[in-house]
């Protein structure tokens, strides 16, 4: 019991390796631009040990950071002078650590500030506008923008209940083809007909060429378009298909 509550606490404290690092820097009152890397590395590893002993879930992220620390530590041991190729510009290996750490601290402090803002539905509330206090007849309303997540959520609900035979192909490529069909339909709505070649103009990537071609094939299959070739010139022309 005692251990599990401790468990939760520590998990809260060290969300990730950056958090642990920040804790160590603060605890030792370290100048962030002059981190005693040996000390910090030792303490970091010590903390990992402790977390393991407490049977906390030490994720891979913590180990990656441990490796980075040890690497920086070993690079620090090589005297800068030996780096004669670029002995002047020899960079402090600790910079690899300092830059992300500074960035992390800045954003962490921004998050702190955000948490002090009066949050809607925590500190401040809006009126739940009920029609009975307005007595207005509401007819046709324009649409409110919808979150994409709601759309995906709706689709996932459907798929959960659908049988396997209605399997839907929604890989990235399939979506690209759909997008291209939509674009081609728009072109045809505007211009009624277009040459085959034109549709490939400006599509330089191999993928786009293939996607365009697949889109045309799919549209032919669905009879969304008709394709004709001129006998003399050989030019292939595509027509909107609602004949």
């Amino acid at each position, binding site marked *: 019991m005692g251990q599990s509550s401790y468990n939760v606490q520590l998990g809260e404290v060290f969300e990730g390796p950056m958090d642990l690092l920040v804790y160590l820097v603060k605890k030792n009152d370290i100048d962030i631009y002059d981190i005693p890397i040996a000390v910090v590395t030792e303490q970091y590893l010590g903390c990992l040990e402790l977390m393991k002993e407490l049977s906390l879930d030490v994720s891979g992220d913590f180990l990656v950071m441990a490796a980075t620390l040890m690497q920086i530590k070993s690079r620090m041991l090589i005297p800068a002078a030996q780096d004669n190729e670029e002995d002047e510009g020899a960079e402090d290996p600790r910079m690899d650590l300092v830059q992300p750490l500074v960035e992390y601290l800045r954003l962490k402090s921004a998050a702190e500030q955000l948490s002090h803002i009066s949050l809607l539905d925590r500190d401040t509330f809006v009126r739940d506008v009920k029609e009975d206090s307005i007595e207005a007849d509401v007819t046709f309303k324009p649409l409110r923008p919808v979150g994409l997540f709601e*759309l995906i959520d709706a689709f996932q609900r459907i798929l959960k209940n659908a049988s396997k035979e209605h399997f839907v192909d929604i890989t990235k490529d399939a979506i690209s083809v759909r997008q291209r069909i939509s674009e081609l339909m728009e072109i045809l709505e505007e211009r009624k007909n277009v040459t085959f070649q034109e549709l490939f103009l400006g599509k330089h990537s191999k993928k786009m060429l293939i996607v365009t071609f697949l889109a045309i094939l799919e549209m032919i299959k669905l009879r969304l378009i008709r394709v004709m070739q001129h006998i003399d010139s050989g030019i292939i022309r595509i027509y909107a298909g609602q004949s």
Partner: protein
Amino acid sequence: MLDSLRPIIESLIFVADEPLSIKQLEAMLGGVSRQQIKDILQQLMAEYETEKRGFALQEVAGGYQFRTRPEYRDWVIKLKQSSPAKLSRAALETLAIIAYKQPVLRTDVEHLRGVDSGGIFKTLLERDLIRVMGRKDLPGRPMVYGTTRRFLEVFGLKDLSSLPTLGEMEQLEESWPSVSKSS
């Protein structure tokens, strides 16, 4: 607390779903007399009246509620008619299927949803979220549907290929299941 009693009562009436009765207020505030509450309510009502605000505190159905003034009724109706509506769950589901499966037949959509969707198709067409892309070469030449440019606008998408794949969404779900619940 006496000093802030007035704004507290005001804020409570403001957020309440229904007219708030003196009894309810008494129970909420604990230790404040009925008469005190009554006095404050009278005071507030008079204030909103004399100051000619856009809404007033009114006694309705045994409680107190803020309501717009009848003289601004036409303005309110105008706003309400121009304010955006939300898509129903059924409409969203239908739209999702069309977005991911287009070009698609109505029968295919109905098969997946397991219900007749004629009414919803009509609404989505009226709202310019879907469109007829053409007719399929099948008996009866059924119409093939797809989404519109307006659809992209409503969902804040650059193009259809920005639609997340289901795989991508599942990825989000898989990682860190323990934390996602608490956060």
